[in-house]
């Protein structure tokens, strides 16, 4: 029997199955790097983040970074498992980080307004710390949430079929 043509072999590949452990390790290293930067550069690293937020460039940078990282993680897993990347998963990886980061940006504005509205001592420094914490949690959310949705989607599809 002759070997299947390469094009047919590609067609017959099953769609990639993501596990939450796949992005978890990469996100953990990123998180540890963030922590290390905070400890090694306790002044300059938070200042860069706060200034980027004040210049309105933080969100666009984070969107670009998280979308690229998510796509890279997904394609790597597809390559390692010799599976076919799915369109639904790819669109989820493109849309969800944007939605999460835009939503959390509104959330951050509400936080800052709340901090500045009441009398709190050292409000400017507190706002800087809120921005820093918010940036970190938003980064985690923008990377973890799409894979969480993909995972639940896969389980739902398995249950239906």
């Amino acid at each position: 029997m002759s070997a299947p043509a390469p094009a047919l072999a590609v067609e017959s590949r099953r769609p990639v199955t993501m596990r939450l452990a796949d992005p978890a390790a990469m996100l953990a290293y990123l998180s540890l790097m963030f922590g290390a930067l905070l400890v090694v550069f306790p002044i300059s690293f938070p200042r860069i983040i706060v200034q980027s937020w004040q210049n309105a460039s933080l969100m666009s940078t984070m969107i670009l970074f998280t979308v690229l990282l998510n796509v890279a993680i997904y394609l790597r897993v597809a390559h390692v498992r010799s599976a076919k990347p799915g369109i639904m998963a790819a669109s989820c990886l493109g849309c969800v980080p944007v939605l999460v980061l835009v939503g959390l940006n509104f959330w951050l504005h509400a936080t800052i307004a709340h901090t500045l509205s009441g009398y709190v001592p050292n409000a400017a420094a507190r706002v800087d710390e809120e921005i820093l914490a918010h940036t970190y949690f938003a980064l985690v959310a923008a990377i973890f949430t799409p894979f969480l949705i993909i995972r639940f989607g896969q389980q739902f599809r398995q249950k239906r079929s």
Partner: protein
Amino acid sequence: MVALNSDNLIADWSAAKWLLWTGLYLGLGILAPWVMIGAWAHQHRSNLKPRLRELFQHGELGLVSLLLASSVIWDLQKSQYMPYTIALGSVFLAATGVMAGNVWIESYCRRSTNSDFHPERGWRDSWSLALLVFSIAIVTEILLDRFAKVAAL
């Protein structure tokens, strides 16, 4: 308004308590069970010398992660961060903690129903998710430490 300078934030011994906290969790959550098995083997004159991977092959690290996430959520709730930030941090710590705990649940269910169970996969998944919870927990503790200093000024 009080300016925040480097002296307030540069890590000193008192600021490195998150390091002690990390050691405590690593010691009690991972090292202690391993040492206790060694003690049991010595007492019963057994040759039992399990590797860390074998000890946690059913996803038990997921349970340790869930406890770790709970304790950090508790610390976050006690902090002076705005309620929005506390909610955001708590939700994502809880989500990652529950997903890590789910590895143990899934391993248990698969073993109980004799369905497809791979110990390597249980270990790998629980290790990756435990590392994630641990890294989020450690960064959260660093952020809490910073915020406590700012609030104290």
